[in-house]
């Protein structure tokens, strides 16, 4: 657990010390209960040392470096920063104000090539609202509009320092996955049925597979940019995150994955628990919303609030997201969904991992994010208590080492009306 020599060696390997290392601010959070979500598990009365953007050390009875800022973590819980696996953060300000909404592939002639980074606004008011409650990273996904193909474009993982980060540094990683839809929404976008949406998807993938071919045909489904964007998907390198609910639609997705060598992630997955064994065998992760327990659509008749538990028990890697359209403005509520899953039997560490470590794994960033371990980026939240509990608050938030001021447009509104007589 406390192996300082190994730690130092590890650090030397992972983070070759910059020349000006001494100039980097150092912070120590002391005596907290640290839920590392790594091999060290839970550490009681432990310390975490942050240097610059990284976690330098984690353990008990660590020396406090000279000049370090010390934060007392007694009675508090330290976790990795929360990672929302599916949002439109930075792509919309007010849903009802269409000028402020940029996530919809809508009627675009171009589909798979769309890239959310072209619309991402790191200065969005939603970012401070959510980061001060512990969301430090988010996947930003495009959504499907009336597109010919059931593919909405490529998503990015962003860090929620937003405008606090130096320009061009707010990006964690662009183009982390392709996003698409199967089932009712795909059928609706295609204009008729599942048959059309599936056939178009196959046609597009066939077009691509037939490369190198003649110049893009005039009636081709894919533009030149689309082809470029889809190539890594067809190579099985870039994950294809499919929003799909009905068990039979998930089975079709598995067929497609076999036929074209796709690396699948299931999003939504209302009936994924019916195929839990097969998904586990194929190591296909599922991103789902534990609160969606009603037969909201004919493709979700088997929705269950025990779905996260059933998937986990079968060995599926799960992440928790919010399915409804309030989930981006209230990404901050992710931890309560995880808590509700725990109330239905999901082990608490798994529920916490489903909103931190597991999204990092799904998007290929677990080498840098998702656990409290030396060498990882310093995304950390110090909570007043159990991080999944309704009455718990985030008291300190660090994103990539930046100590986040706990201020948002909402806290400013609150303080204004607390001051005014009208509110007292």
């Amino acid at each position, binding site marked *: 657990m406390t192996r300082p020599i190994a730690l130092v060696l590890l650090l030397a390997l992972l983070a070759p010390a910059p020349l000006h290392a001494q100039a980097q601010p150092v912070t120590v959070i002391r005596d907290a209960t640290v839920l590392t979500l790594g091999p060290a598990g839970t550490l009681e009365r432990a310390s975490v040392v942050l240097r610059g953007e990284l976690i330098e050390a984690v353990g008990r009875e660590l020396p406090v470096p000279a000049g370090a800022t010390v934060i007392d973590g007694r009675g508090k819980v330290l976790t990795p920063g929360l990672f929302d696996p599916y949002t439109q953060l930075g792509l919309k300000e007010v849903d009802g104000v269409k000028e402020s909404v940029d996530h919809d592939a809508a009627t675009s002639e171009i589909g798979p090539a769309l890239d959310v980074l072209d619309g991402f606004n790191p200065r969005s008011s939603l970012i401070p609202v959510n980061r001060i409650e512990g969301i430090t990273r988010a996947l930003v996904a495009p959504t499907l509009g009336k597109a010919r193909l059931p593919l909405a474009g490529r998503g990015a993982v962003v860090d929620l320092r937003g405008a606090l980060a130096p320009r061009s540094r707010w990006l964690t990683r662009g183009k982390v996955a392709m996003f698409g839809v199967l089932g009712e929404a795909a059928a609706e976008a295609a204009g008729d049925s599942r048959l059309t949406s599936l056939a178009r998807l196959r046609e597009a993938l066939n077009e691509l597979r037939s490369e190198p071919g003649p110049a893009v045909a005039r009636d081709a489904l894919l533009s030149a940019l689309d082809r470029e964007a889809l190539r890594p998907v067809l190579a099985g390198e870039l994950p294809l995150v499919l929003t799909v609910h009905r068990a039979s639609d998930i089975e079709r997705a598995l067929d497609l994955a076999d036929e074209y060598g796709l690396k699948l992630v299931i999003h939504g997955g209302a009936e994924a628990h019916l195929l839990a064994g097969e998904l586990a065998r194929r190591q296909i992760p599922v991103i789902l919303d534990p609160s969606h*327990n009603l*037969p909201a659509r004919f493709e979700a008749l088997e929705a269950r609030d025990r779905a996260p538990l059933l998937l986990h028990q079968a060995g599926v890697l799960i992440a928790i997201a919010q399915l409804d359209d309030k989930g981006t*403005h209230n990404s901050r509520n992710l931890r309560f969904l995880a808590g*509700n899953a725990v109330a239905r039997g999901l082990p608490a560490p798994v529920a916490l991992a489903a909103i931190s470590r597991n999204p990092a794994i799904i998007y290929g960033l677990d080498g840098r994010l998702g656990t409290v371990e030396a060498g990882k980026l310093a995304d950390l939240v110090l909570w007043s208590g159990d991080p999944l*509990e*309704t009455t718990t608050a985030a008291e300190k938030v660090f994103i990539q080492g930046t100590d986040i001021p706990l201020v948002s447009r909402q806290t400013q509104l609150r303080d204004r009306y607390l001051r005014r007589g*009208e509110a007292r």
Partner: protein
Amino acid sequence: MTPRPTAGLPALVPALLGLLLVACRAPEAPPAGTALADPFPSQYRVAPHPEQLIRGAIVLDGTGRRLEGVDLRLREGRIAAIGENLPVDGAEVVEAAGRWVTPGIIDAHSHLGVYATPEVWANAEGNELTAPVTAEVWAEHGVWPQDPGFQAARENGGVTTLLVLPGSGNLIGGRGVTLKNVAATTYQEMKHPQAPPVLKMACGENPRRVYGEGKKQAPATRMANVAGYRQAFIDAQIWRQKRDDAAGGKEGAKAPDRDLQMETLAGVLDGQILVQNHCYRADEMAVMLDVAREFGFRITAFHHAVEAYKLGPTLAREGVCAAMWADWWGFKMEAFDGIRENIALVHAADPARSCAIVHSDDAYGIQRLNQEAAKAMAAGQRAGLAIAPEVAIQWITRNPARALGIEAHTGTLEVGKAADVVIWDRDPFSVYALPQQVYIDGSRRYDRRQPAAEPESDFLLGLTPAALESAP
């Protein structure tokens, strides 16, 4: 309670029964043009249930008190006693040491039944978007009792009573109905016998979007919204005057023709129908208070009221409730100023007189109003407002009962009131809390230890393989 006309006639052949029904009913039918007080009367019956003694629980009684280790006796549908060491006296004993007991949870804003799951066109009954004033329609005629959401709300959220409202696409959307959350074939069997009718009105963007944007007709602006409410009530004032003149035997006065719109709006002017007003912005709420003053009616509650915190003392002074979400914000312009402390600030503006409510407006949110209240309470506490759990529980029990006009019957655990009770496995403000038992009028309608083998909703039978696999 009116007995059904068919009671006691089960042996008769259907044809004869039909004739008899006609024969029975004909004399009762009022003369043409006469409005019945309630043409769709409640058929709710208190289910017989053995007397219960819930022992040793921590009780948040909804009156603002927290009682440790007390017993509750439920008898003949009512709270018969609350106190320490009550005698068993032949009651069934429910050991509840370490458990928490609250009044049945009440949702002041639901669309269960009118926007049922599955959310298909055929089940979308909530908005009569064919004219901006549809005071003549009643939500209860769109309620589908097979909506699976009712059972989920009871079992996961402890919801015993809910107000089902029309949507907010119209300026005046129609009447809402208060239901007891019991499994039933007809909505009349769920209809709360004591609850007054309510009228749904809507401010702001929704009517403008539906009519101005969608149909290129009025209202396209908030100006036309207000003109629309005023014209409707001007018409109602005139109609009501004629009605009253004729009833009072004024010389030459002739009763006006029946008019479903006017009957409902006159009911509002009479104070018999409670106004439930969808309204987000503080400035718009202030306008609506003036509209109500102009015509001499009261607004019982503002719903959604995302900016109610800007108007807290005014709402308390006017005696108007605010039914709010804990944290929804930003989905439209008028919801952009939402803050976590909204509910706590409305409450704290005048703790003695204010009427803060946590509502759901959502088939999922209704399953965890306790958690929504918890978040609002915690946000208030962090902002320095002293709000104890025994007070915050009123946001989802007593205060919605007040807004629904049933505070005399339910919403608190007091001797003589309806035995609408939830036993929680722990502090109901915990994210991990789940109802263990739910009682409605003293009848156990849910027991987590003995879950039903089949879903209540007819719709779900046989549709889902998992349900078939678990069938006996």
